[in-house]
């Protein structure tokens, strides 16, 4: 379980995340949605200790993220931010192997190799494994980064905009993979998503943020409703049920 209590972040006079208190359940997929500048990424960065908070506390699986040793946290929680600029010239396999660093400190065991191969396999990177990251397309690189955090094999998986740069096929593949991680491996997955239809189709739980606060939260079926979504995004959003799934239409 991830518990945030009164988490706050200010940039100068602007309050980007304003007293957010949340309890994200163990297991399943939670998606954080909301308009640009709602504070979603900032919240995720604070939950994953990448960014210091001005106020409040966060515990992940009972560990206080600002106090627990970073290497212990690295075995419990992994985070992938969006827009990762990598200057280091590494091969895909090297990158994924570094996902095992918290477990093996650089001395790879057989068990590590199993995790690395599986992660490369899951993300369909077998043919690209020995290519350098700077030789890949944006989407291929994004998949390599996700493979790395997957190899890290943590109970909690936090991903900011994991569908960035992915085409439809790989976006769907990525979400299916998240579903698998949650259902088969019992991971707790937290995603920041912009595509509310992906959020609707694949999440168990949705948190909507606006102006740095939690605007609404609940089961996906309770959140994907015209009144809720229109209020959050300040636009007209219709919701249709297609084949048992709630699909939002907002294109004009």
């Amino acid at each position: 379980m991830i518990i945030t209590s009164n988490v706050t972040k200010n940039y100068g006079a602007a309050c980007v995340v304003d007293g957010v208190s949340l309890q994200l359940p163990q297991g399943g997929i939670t998606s954080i949605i909301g308009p640009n500048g709602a504070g979603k990424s900032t919240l995720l960065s604070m939950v994953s200790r990448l960014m210091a908070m001005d106020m409040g506390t966060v515990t992940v699986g009972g560990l206080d993220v600002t106090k627990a040793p970073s290497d212990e946290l690295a075995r419990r929680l992994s985070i992938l931010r969006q827009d990762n600029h990598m200057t280091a010239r590494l091969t895909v396999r090297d990158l994924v192997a570094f996902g095992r660093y918290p477990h093996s400190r650089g001395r790879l065991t057989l068990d590590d190799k199993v995790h690395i191969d599986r992660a490369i396999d899951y993300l369909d990177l077998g043919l690209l494994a020995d290519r350098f990251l700077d030789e890949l397309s944006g989407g291929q690189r994004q998949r390599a980064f996700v493979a790395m955090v997957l190899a890290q094999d943590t109970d909690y998986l936090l991903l900011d905009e994991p569908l960035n740069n992915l085409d439809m096929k790989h976006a769907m593949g990525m979400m299916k993979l998240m579903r698998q991680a949650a259902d088969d491996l019992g991971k707790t997955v937290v995603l920041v998503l912009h595509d509310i239809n992906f959020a609707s189709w694949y999440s168990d739980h949705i948190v909507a943020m606006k102006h740095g606060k939690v605007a609404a939260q609940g089961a996906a079926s309770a959140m994907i409703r015209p009144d809720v979504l229109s209020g959050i995004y300040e636009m007209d959003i219709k919701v249709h049920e297609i084949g048992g799934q709630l699909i939002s239409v907002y294109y004009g």
Partner: protein
Amino acid sequence: MPALILASIITLVLAVISVFVGVSDVSISSLLAGGVDGRAMEVLLVSRIPRTLALVLAGASMAIAGLVMQMVVRNRFVEPSTTGTSESAALGFLVVTLLAPGWPLMAKMGVAALFALGGTALFLRILKVVPLRDVLMVPLVGIMLGGIIGALTAFIAYRANLMASLLAWNMGDFSGIIRGRYELLWIGLCCCILAYIAADRFTVAGMGKDFTTNLGLNYQRVMVLGLVIVSLVSAVVLVSVGAIPFLGLIVPNLVSLMIGDNMRRTVPWVAIGGAGMVLACDIAGRIIRFPYEIPIAVVMGVVGSAVFLYLLLRTPRHAT
């Protein structure tokens, strides 16, 4: 692996050539003719072998310093001479030479290393305040900072009548190396070993602060370790033989093009490549105007700037 062995053999051959090149006649036959007490043997032990050792140690450690710097700063074009590090070391050495001329060389080197650390920290602080989008701006800022520190150093040296010494420190040259005047360079070797031990940490740091934190490492601590290695190496090399420009830049970049940036793999390559490059440039400097010598800084400057230009032109400017 076989390629690495080949590179080692080439470097070893260069080292052997380096031992036998020079004005004084040192060859297998003169060594055999003179015996253990002969003049050739004396030249060999007092001058030639120390010089070759100094070349290997300085070359390997300067190249490693460049590599470490590029990983922690996350920029391809930084090395001690493009970040104000070497200039700061020279300033420190000058200050300690003026204020405490009687101190042993080891202590003076320590002061130079502290100044190098301070200068590099200042450089990083500037980078933090002025976020630079263009990869080339980073070394340019460093070169400007180095210029300012260098001007200050020159001013003090001028007032103190030490311009000749300053010129010697800024112009790497191995011709004055004899037994007893290079041993500090072994500290450089220790730094190389340290860099190899911590190679994974540096690679992780090279991925950036967020990745480093995600993998449970303290970014700040890796950064400090890297800067200590870089400062120590710069100071040791400066004090022993003088600054060698470009070396820390071109060797790690060429290795990166070949096999990437995973430091566990690149450290041996960079060390051997650095040693080989310095040996080759020094041999060239010794035979071009035989029996006179061209300082290695000059040879390295010519070769290095050509390779540097090549690297600049092939790098897309926003490809970071």
